[in-house]
């Protein structure tokens, strides 16, 4: 590769400018100071936000009195144990499972898909729903796509379902829908959350206006933000300004991608294929309308209707006693941090996770374990 194409690193990228980041960090400190009480707590509900915050080392330049909490924003982490068990049982029965890499290590009641794979099951890691369908086209075996993700990712699954997938392809949906869980967090007793940073990519689909009703009901501001360091810092400045001024409203700080009405075409595909049903989110609560399941007309592609899946046969061992100690739920609800967990970094590590938050690259515990949390570096 010629030397001329090598760059000096991230500094020249517009939304990663160190000088502007420092200015925004100073502005954040100023506004938080003007609020006049500490700490100020805001929540984001997106693993990609936490990834970016950690990856660029933003926590080392956030004001000490600003608490940026990661909420239930990791779809892998909130995938419930019985959902993992369904995939494990199918895999053990010789059905080929295709799924995202993060789903491999999520502990089920006694086994993860990675465990099943090591014992001989066929599990393929795919980067997209389309790739899973491709896989099915190239084989005569049945392929089950164990689908996780929020509405953004669910749209991609919907497109594949609508795109005439091969007859040996089906979807085991663990897709989740974010807006209902924000209500749960806002109504949780003892919640400290004074503002939400909403995920920019989900909002490209849903539109920013979807949060208007939430703001009207809970009087908590919502700012839609992107994922580059300056996007996040800019979004936080706007959010604490709204907190300071006591003017709860929706602000779109990601206008280069997000419109108020969102992507109508994608929404149409999403709701054509999926409907919302209530369901348990791992560690959180029962979330009314929080799960996305395939509509009746797509029964042919719905794994749960094509196979009789009996997860009870997995329950030959009691689940690890450690899972009783795990506080992933409280961490995702924003009322505890990983350092409050007695297992964190000891019994629970990415290589041998107890809770799902330690599995996914978007899980709070894994991110903290890897990047050092609130480091004093």
């Amino acid at each position, binding site marked *: 590769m010629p*030397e001329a194409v090598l760059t000096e690193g991230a500094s020249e990228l517009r939304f990663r400018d160190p000088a502007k*980041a420092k200015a925004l960090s100073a502005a954040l400190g100023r506004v938080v100071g003007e609020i006049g009480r500490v700490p100020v707590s805001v929540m984001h509900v997106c693993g990609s936000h936490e990834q970016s915050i*950690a990856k660029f080392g933003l926590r080392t330049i956030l004001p000490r009195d600003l608490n940026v909490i990661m909420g239930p924003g990791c779809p892998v982490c909130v995938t419930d144990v019985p959902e993992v068990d369904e995939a494990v049982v199918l895999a053990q029965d010789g059905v080929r499972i295709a799924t995202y890499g993060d789903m*491999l*290590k999520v502990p089920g009641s006694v086994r993860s898909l990675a465990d099943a794979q090591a014992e001989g099951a066929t599990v393929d890691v795919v980067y997209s729903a389309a790739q899973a369908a491709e896989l099915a086209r190239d084989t005569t075996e049945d392929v089950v796509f164990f689908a996780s993700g929020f509405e953004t990712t669910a749209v991609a699954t919907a497109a594949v379902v609508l795109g005439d997938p091969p007859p040996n392809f089906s979807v085991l949906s663990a897709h989740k829908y974010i807006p209902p869980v924000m209500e749960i967090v806002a109504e949780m007793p003892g919640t400290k959350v004074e503002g939400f940073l909403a995920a920019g990519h989900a909002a490209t689909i849903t539109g920013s206006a979807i949060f208007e009703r939430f703001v009207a009901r809970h009087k908590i501001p919502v700012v839609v933000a992107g994922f580059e360091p300056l996007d996040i810092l800019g979004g936080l400045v706007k959010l604490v300004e709204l907190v300071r001024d006591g003017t709860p409203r929706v602000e779109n700080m990601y206008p280069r991608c997000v419109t108020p009405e969102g992507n109508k075409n994608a929404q149409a595909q999403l709701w054509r294929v999926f409907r919302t049903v209530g369901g348990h989110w791992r560690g959180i609560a029962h979330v009314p309308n929080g799960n996305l399941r395939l509509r009746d007309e797509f029964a042919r592609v719905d794994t749960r209707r094509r196979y009789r899946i009996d997860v009870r046969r997995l329950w030959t061992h009691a689940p*690890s006693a450690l899972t009783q100690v795990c506080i992933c739920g409280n961490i995702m609800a924003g009322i505890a941090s990983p350092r409050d967990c007695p297992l964190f970094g000891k019994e629970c590590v990415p290589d*041998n996770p107890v809770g799902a938050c330690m599995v996914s690259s978007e899980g709070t515990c894994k991110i903290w374990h890897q990047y050092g949390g609130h480091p004093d*570096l």
Partner: protein
Amino acid sequence: MTATSSIRTSETLVTLRHGAGGRAMRQLIGETLAAGFLQTPVDGIGLAAMDDGAALRIGERWLVVTTDSHVVHPIFFPGGDIGRLAVAGTVNDLAMMGATEPLGLTCAIIMEEGFRRSDLERIQRSMQGTCREAGVTILTGDTKVMGRGELDGIVINTTGVALADAVIPDAGLRPGDRILLTGSIGDHGIALMVKRHSLAIDAALESDVTPINGLIRAALAAAPGTVTAMKDPTRGGVSSALHEMAEKSGVGIVVHEPRVPISPVVRSAAEMLGLDPFQIANEGKALLGVRPEAVGAVLDALRAHPLGIAAAEVGECIADHVGRVILDTGIGRRLLVEAEGEPLPRIC
């Protein structure tokens, strides 16, 4: 260990993450393979050091030995093939011990029944060419064939021997030492990943697989005695290599991300695939710990060599945060992430 956790597969079977070059692999080796061999006294560097190779004192000089088995999929990839990898990998491991003039290599090949003869010839030609570049030859070898399905294609093991006047261990870093990197990171792993997954990235992505003993020889000659540690960031990438060096040396390391050379294509591809370039394998790069007063001389020598044009000073060693690697992103600071054998297929 609790009674319930012992039923977990990860503790009873070897999994792919044990071969990924990270903490899990070091732990497996320590707990099983190295047991019983660690106590045997060695005059020099033996298994206990878990270095790139071993070094035995022979009079005033050192006999350096290293061995490496190579499995890669696909066996022919942009920028190289398994033959080039097998020669360069072992030559580079010797060079990382300070032995830049190898006496020779051994080569053991195991093939699967049905392996194409033309592919074998192509691999042989590639090994010949790479040996010429490195100034080394193959002294002896072994060939086996296994039944269909008993092996995936071909496995090549090479062992290298060399004499050196001084041995440079992984563990020699001291606070104040600077960290030099000989060129851009991530090229090998990303090129393979893109090829293997048939990702439609329309750009020239090539592995950097190359013997770099000549480059290292030039660097060592520029300021003798000032290079305190060396490691090639292969499996596990720059992150694993730096973590190992920091742990063994008892120092902390600060890396300045904006100074780390990386091609825009590799950066974009890595972001698209959700991969950290610091965890991606390289096959023609080295990390050098250098005394601060010699940085200029060593860097000049590296940059004067065709394989070191993009060499850069990327970090420094500190006395606190022992065993940790801190990344200064230009915006803030965080810990550098060590690879854990993510569910990515093997790449070297």
